[in-house]
């Protein structure tokens, strides 16, 4: 039976996230407001005040505490949620490392925003990039419906016994956080059913009064090394499981997102553009237009950023004539975009071909159709063995 709710509402990305949290029935929610995430925190507070969200809502005094409260609640055995953005994310950095190292299956929203400068209340993925090696699973989404659906799927992934890792769901500030779209809000019973398999999992370790067990030292000597190995192995296992969860979700709700990546018109494509976040939607429209002009171009939407979908990407990108990567962030030290840097690392799987890095959309600057069309033109030129520029800053 496929569940299709009749409950379609025009809501923002932040509100869609709040509905997802509501439907996942967390025990503890802790969060601190920050633009452009505040609406999500306020919405959850309202759900709680209205008696819809039956949880402990902890209005903490800062993001560092938000992460600590959530991590500890998970270690005590509960389901928790927190959300932040930009400086808030880096303010919880010490605990981000702890949460993943303790293997706490927490789900968190990060509304992407530029970190430096207090006036930089602007969209940009640099905050997520700053935490790429924090040991978290990092997902990036494209639209409001996907925000809601991905949070639900993320609990399935995080709390799976074979994974036990925190998941960070990223969406663009402003362009998604404040974007109002029609969102199909699933029925509670259907979400309950979707999350039910978690109940059949072996019990994970939790903090029990009087049990005499404890955690937090992360191992000493070879113990430390062992827990690192296990962490890395779980991260690798999450790839395949994410694809499966996506397929299960599609079966249950008729909406699927392709798992780790979604490839759009890539099969016969000569050239491919890789993007993530809200820019993907715009890019789809441009790809269609370019195809009408006869350019065989495809699009890869990166959903998983950590772990990096090495295998899936290699399959799609192998044999292409040129690829371009759109980054809404920068990679210091490599003079390119961070995703571009990682795509370059795929060369040993996909071979050598022209690769172009486009940095666009920093600080709320709009990634327009014209920009994307220009990118595709550049990639196309490069595929024709014409000279090309490796890094381009737009606008």
């Amino acid at each position, binding site marked *: 039976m496929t569940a299709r709710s009749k409950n*379609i*509402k*025009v809501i*923002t990305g932040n509100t869609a996230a709040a509905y997802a949290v509501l439907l996942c029935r967390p025990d503890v929610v802790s969060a601190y407001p920050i*633009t452009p995430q505040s609406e999500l925190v306020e919405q959850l507070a309202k759900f709680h005040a209205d008696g819809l969200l039956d949880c402990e809502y902890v209005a903490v005094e800062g993001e560092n505490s938000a992460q600590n409260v959530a991590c500890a609640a998970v270690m005590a055995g509960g389901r928790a949620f927190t959300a932040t953005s930009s400086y808030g994310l880096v303010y919880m950095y010490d605990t981000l490392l702890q949460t993943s190292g303790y293997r706490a299956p927490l789900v968190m929203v990060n509304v992407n925003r530029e970190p430096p400068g207090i*006036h930089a*209340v602007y969209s940009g993925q640099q905050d997520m990039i700053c935490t790429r090696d924090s040991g978290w699973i990092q997902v990036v989404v*494209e*639209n409001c419906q996907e925000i809601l659906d991905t949070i639900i799927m993320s609990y399935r992934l995080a709390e799976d016994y074979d994974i036990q890792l925190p998941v960070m769901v990223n969406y*663009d500030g*402003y*362009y*998604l956080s*404040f*974007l*109002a*779209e*029609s969102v199909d809000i699933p029925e509670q019973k259907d979400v309950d059913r979707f999350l039910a398999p978690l109940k059949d999992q072996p019990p994970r370790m939790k903090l029990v009064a009087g049990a005499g067990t404890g955690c937090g030292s992360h191992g000493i000597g070879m113990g430390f090394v062992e827990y690192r190995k296990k962490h890395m192995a779980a991260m690798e296992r999450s790839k395949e499981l994410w694809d499966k969860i996506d397929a299960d979700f599609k079966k249950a709700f008729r909406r699927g997102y392709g798992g780790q990546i979604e490839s759009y018109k890539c099969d016969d494509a000569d050239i491919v553009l890789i993007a993530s976040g*809200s*820019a993907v*939607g*715009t890019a*789809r*429209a441009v790809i269609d237009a370019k195809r009408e002009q006869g350019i065989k171009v495809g699009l890869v939407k990166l959903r998983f950023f950590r772990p990096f979908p090495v295998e899936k990407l290699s399959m799609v990108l192998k044999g292409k004539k040129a690829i371009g990567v759109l980054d809404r962030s920068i990679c210091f030290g490599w003079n390119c975009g961070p995703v571009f840097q990682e795509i370059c690392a795929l060369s040993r799987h996909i071979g050598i071909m022209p690769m172009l890095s486009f940095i666009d959309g920093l600080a*709320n600057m*709009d*990634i*327009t*159709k014209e920009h994307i069309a220009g990118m595709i033109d550049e990639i196309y030129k490069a595929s024709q063995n014409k000279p090309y520029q490796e890094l381009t800053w737009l606008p």
Partner: protein
Amino acid sequence: MPAKEIRFHGRGGQGAVLAARMLASACAYEGKHVASFPMYGFERRGMPVVAFTRFDTEPVREKTQIYTPDCLMVIDPTLLEIGNLYEGLKTDGVLILNSPKPFKKRPSKNLGKAGVINATQVALCEIGRDIPNTCLIGALAAVTGWVKLESIIKGFGDYLEGDMLERNIRNAQRGYNEVEVISWD
């Protein structure tokens, strides 16, 4: 009907963001795909705010700002002074304007129609405060015909309730009925 793009210009506190969203809700009630979002820095009363609404019979995929609007809604007449307000306006574009003054001179050859109403006065009368947004949405429905007044009123229900809902419905109805339309060929 092909996709439509509407750009809203207002000042913080006048309800431009909400107007854009309410219009999206109204269109969603007619089965259309919608997308609406604002663009502003710090949230401050009086600061210029821009908001965007798109609707289409096909899914709206673009997540960009609107550069080639079909319609401009100007919630505060002082914002008419913005240098590039009409830049990119599509041919036969529409302007919905809150102004106490008559609007005569055609400011752009692409502007085909202007709907002008003293929405501030209507709002002060119906709501008791200077929140002209719902009146202007009523006016938009009348001038463009892109969306039905009853859908607009239904959309309000997503955001308002009780007495405020009633007052805003009257605000929108008056906008719908009282807007003065100027057309150019």
